[in-house]
């Protein structure tokens, strides 16, 4: 599903955010990207959704070489991906329903599809009774669940999560991880960058560890360390 072949990403001329990274993520896998701040976890995610391009090497996502992907094709690549962020990135003037519906609206899905799919995914994340609330009326965990619902409503092949539990207390973080686990069990590949050793150690899934842009560990059923 995702393949990195000797990928190097530079910021400026002499700062390498990622150096010679190579790994494969098969369809349906759950992968943690771990490492200290500035180790390159977020850059890896940004390379996967083509917010960045590598200077060297090749990134393959869902069969497409994203280095060679024309700018006009990038939106179509992204329609097969969901993105979850530490700061949720919810639209504060829209309700829960509207935030989730937004990602279907902007890719031109008709109203009847939106009316059918949004309640389904809100049910999945446990917010069916809060669809008319504004983000400011929700807790942090609930806001993150809205963000996950928005990322998943289009049933993406890949879900990229950047520190999704970073702003949450441990209990709420566990709820979010259960949700991501449930999404992964539907066949969606999940790649999650995190600092949170508790969730990594509890889940025991594949761990790719980065240090100053270099992949220093790639372990099946790993722990944080």
């Amino acid at each position, binding site marked *: 599903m995702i393949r990195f072949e000797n990928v190097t990403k530079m910021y400026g001329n002499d700062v390498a955010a990622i150096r010679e990274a190579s790994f494969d993520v098969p369809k349906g896998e759950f992968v943690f990207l771990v490492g200290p701040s500035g180790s390159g976890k977020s850059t890896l995610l940004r390379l996967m959704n083509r917010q960045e391009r590598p200077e060297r090497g090749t990134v393959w996502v869902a069969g497409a070489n994203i280095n060679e992907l024309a700018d006009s094709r990038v*939106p179509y690549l992204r329609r097969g991906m969901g*993105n979850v962020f530490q700061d949720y990135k919810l639209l504060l003037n829209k309700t829960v329903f509207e935030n989730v519906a937004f*990602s279907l609206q*902007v890719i*031109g899905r008709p109203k009847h599809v939106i009316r059918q799919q949004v309640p389904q995914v809100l049910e999945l994340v446990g917010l069916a009774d809060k669809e008319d609330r504004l983000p400011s009326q929700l807790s942090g965990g609930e806001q993150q669940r809205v963000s996950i619902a*928005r990322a998943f409503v*289009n049933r993406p092949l890949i879900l990229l999560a950047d520190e999704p539990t970073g702003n949450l207390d441990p209990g709420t973080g566990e709820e979010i991880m259960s949700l991501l686990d449930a999404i992964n069990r539907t066949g969606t590949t999940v790649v999650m960058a995190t600092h949170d050793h508790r969730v990594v150690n509890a889940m025991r899934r594949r761990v790719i560890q980065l240090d100053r842009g270099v992949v220093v560990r790639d372990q099946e059923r790993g722990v944080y360390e």
Partner: protein
Amino acid sequence: MFARISYAFRETIASFRRNVTLSAAAILTSAVSLLLVGTTFLIQRAFDNLLVQWRGDVGMIVFVRPDVSEEQLSFIKQTLEAQPNVINVEKLDYLDRAASFEEAKRVFAGDRTTLSLLSVETIPSQFKVVPVTTDPTLVRGLADQYRNLPGVQGVALAEDEFEVISTMSDFVRSVTITMSLILLGVAVTLIWNTIRTAMVARRNEIEVMKLVGATNWFIRIPFILEGLIQGIFGAIVSCGGLWVLNRAWTSGVAGFKAGTGVSSLVVPGSYVSGVMIILLVVGALAGSIGSGIAASKFLDV
């Protein structure tokens, strides 16, 4: 497709509401600059009416009596053509009574009294003379000579009648065109800035849109529509201003005595309508160009 169109319109209206003050400023600036563009057209047309008789470097007009005989007419023509050192013979033009009457309709556009006294039968025909010499005394001497020819009703010299107006026309045209171009640039910049501000204010939304797979055109179109509407609203306001201005001008000119020549400055309604269409097109173009540039440049907010 319908979902996308309705989304674009809803977003355009919502963005318009969010930026009411900036949008109003953009509309007003467009309106002022377009009003100046329109006024330039009207001033030009008014001066053209005054100078229509003298278009094409005509320096002298020999008016021929309506009851002139064929022999007299050909004698006048031969006399004019016999002066190749003073007169550009190739450019010598004869306007018969029908053509002269059409021209008079523009010259006396605002002077209905004079116009009602004229007809194809009573109007003099005319020779338009382009001098080759720059020496005004030579042309004036020739004019005195022609006044006495049989069949000639009178001779008019550009120097006496419209030299000052012609110079003034050129000056006014340069000033108004320059000012309207500058103001049009200001209007485009202001529309550009309004759209830029709207995009920066909505950067989170744009980022989410891009990450969920919206195409750049889908994101841009509501912003371009917003600029287009600002340009068109500005043009509509300027059209209203132009209509009021022209009405005030027409009634002001009507106060002058018939035969003073000032009546020529009246601009007909059909011409004003044409100018309004031009203003609408220019407004729409200015709006979409300003917003189009901003919407492309600031897509990576």
